[in-house]
């Protein structure tokens, strides 16, 4: 969570300095949910489908922020090699499909990956498909949610409800509770305060274990996006009163207090962690920035692997 926040802070600054090609999308306010979305997963066995604001989850899954930085800079050393950018990177061979922009489209991909594992007799694996509140209004997500339930695939559908889809509030996206959407398809349903690190951890632990045992799970975790939709956006459409309600609910602060209260962390250690995470981010971003971008002259423009 600390690394993700440090990374977001860094790319935001780079964006404002004009050093990033396209948009920048942060996970401020999502870190607890995001970290918990992947922390119970095992690379190489499970499937993880990060959504837009999932830097914390990518760290929890075990990927370095170096890959995230490479994706933003279009490094030729990166997985996407400048052919796709911002948060659109994945490593399908390790269990992270590369997300496309079309919201809702990746949930059925997760379903298919889990179906393949079932066909091959792999047991005890799980897939986590992350989505946002607004994305639950996309048809593709409904088709996928229903498909997963019908096939009883070991999937957790994690809906991060940050109350807005770009500028559109929940009330203009759906008229029923988000939990009911999952219940309607036959999922076991959970809801938690996504700013509460311990509560979210517990919810995801339960849901991931239940999905591993073979029952599709639907988790709604509530938070507020503590930034714009992208760094181009000042989120002026979010009322000041609502922002004020979250003033002391930054998930990083809540997590720090919880860990200190539990006696697992001291203020001093926390400061050290923060500094370490900042250093790590600094190092990775500097490296990605140094790496060469794609070479247009050497580009093969080939969209297919096979030719007659």
């Amino acid at each position, binding site marked *: 969570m600390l690394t993700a926040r440090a990374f977001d802070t860094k790319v935001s600054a780079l964006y404002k300095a004009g050093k990033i090609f396209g948009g920048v999308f942060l996970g401020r306010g999502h870190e607890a949910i995001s970290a918990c979305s992947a922390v119970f997963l095992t690379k190489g066995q499970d*499937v993880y489908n990060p959504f837009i604001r999932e830097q914390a989850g990518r760290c929890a899954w075990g990927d370095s922020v170096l890959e995230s930085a490479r994706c933003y800079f279009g490094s030729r050393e990166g*997985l*996407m*090699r400048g*052919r*796709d950018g911002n948060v*659109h990177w*994945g490593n*399908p*061979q390790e269990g992270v*499909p*590369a997300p*496309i*922009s*079309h919201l809702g*489209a*990746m*949930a*059925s*991909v*997760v*379903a*298919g*990956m*889990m*179906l*393949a*594992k079932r*066909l*091959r007799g792999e047991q005890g694996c799980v897939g986590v498909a992350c989505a946002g509140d607004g994305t639950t209004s996309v*048809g*593709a997500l409904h*088709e*996928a949610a*229903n*498909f997963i339930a*019908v096939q009883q695939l070991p999937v957790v559908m994690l809906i991060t409800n940050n109350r807005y889809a770009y500028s559109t509030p929940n009330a203009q996206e759906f008229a029923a509770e988000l939990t009911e959407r999952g219940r309607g398809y036959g999922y076991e349903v959970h809801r938690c305060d996504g700013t509460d690190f311990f509560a979210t951890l517990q919810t995801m632990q339960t849901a991931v274990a239940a999905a591993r045992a073979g029952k599709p799970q639907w988790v709604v975790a509530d938070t507020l996006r503590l930034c714009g939709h992208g760094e181009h956006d000042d989120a002026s459409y979010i009322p000041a009163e609502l922002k004020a309600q979250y003033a002391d609910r930054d998930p990083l602060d809540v997590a720090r207090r919880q860990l200190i209260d539990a006696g697992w962390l001291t203020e001093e250690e926390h400061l050290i962690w923060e500094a370490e995470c900042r250093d790590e981010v600094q190092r990775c971003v500097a490296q990605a920035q140094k790496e060469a971008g794609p070479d247009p002259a050497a580009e093969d423009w*080939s*969209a*297919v*692997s*096979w*030719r*007659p």
Partner: protein
Amino acid sequence: MAVTYIDAIHQALAELLAEDDAVFLMGEDIGGSFGGAFKATKGLAEKFPGRVINTPISEDAIVGAGIGAALAGMKPILEMQFADFGTLGQNQMANNAGAHFYRTGVPVNVTLRMPCGGTPGGGPFHSQSLEALFAHYPGLHVFTPATVADAYFMLKEAVRIPDPVVFMEHKFLYRWLKADTWQEENPLPVGKARIARVGKHATVVAFSAMVPEALKAAELLAQQGYDIEVIDLRSVKPLDYDTVLASLSRTARLLVVSEDFPYGGVAAEVVATVASMGLHLLDAPPLRLTSHDSPIPYHPDLWREHRPSADSIAAAAKYLISY
């Protein structure tokens, strides 16, 4: 014993399932004893338990799940009940599967079977030919078999090729087109067009169900002393311009026939490419003959007028020759 185009598809599916554990089928109404809307998968669910999977009516999810399964090492063959409904799976096919290899370097081995094309009484939403719509997107191969042997051979190739393939199987040909066998001694490789009939006065380029129509047209014109060359493209992407241009160097006249709508179709694509690469070969303007730019009508009398036929192809070819 005569075998049909759909027998060839059934046979290819059965062999693919038997030969490779990574192959499985997914689609609507295929998982039980029913065998799918056209019975292409009849008997396969019983023969290959667990590997012929029924899905909800969710074209987006069928293709999306197929992509996921392919990323996890499988070779799914997906069935759209009708090509027309493939528009609902098109986003996944184009933006997810089609873009994947370029973005990630990892090919997505999905095969999308699309029962396409017109039949009498099919109407506006069970008759369409969507080759151009899918071929438009980078990263997809689009196969359009016009013979029993190609239906068999090219479906097997579609699964062998590691990229996403849209396999357009024509519903009219399903039971109408017959041959002695689906086996061919030395099948032409995919990507090569076939000279279906040798001629010298004009070249008619066609694919899918327009190939038999073009051959009929050539017979009609033969009676009038004209010798028409007919090229079966076999795949519209990749498209074998070498064979087309070589033919034009002999005939100097081009008519491209497609059952699809005219705007931005495969016929337009072929005419445009030939005009830019081979205008010097031509003695007449390159022509195309397509369906009308209107939805496909229900009544068989209207439908027959809507699409190119042997008669309209013959008339267009005659105009071309007399130009």
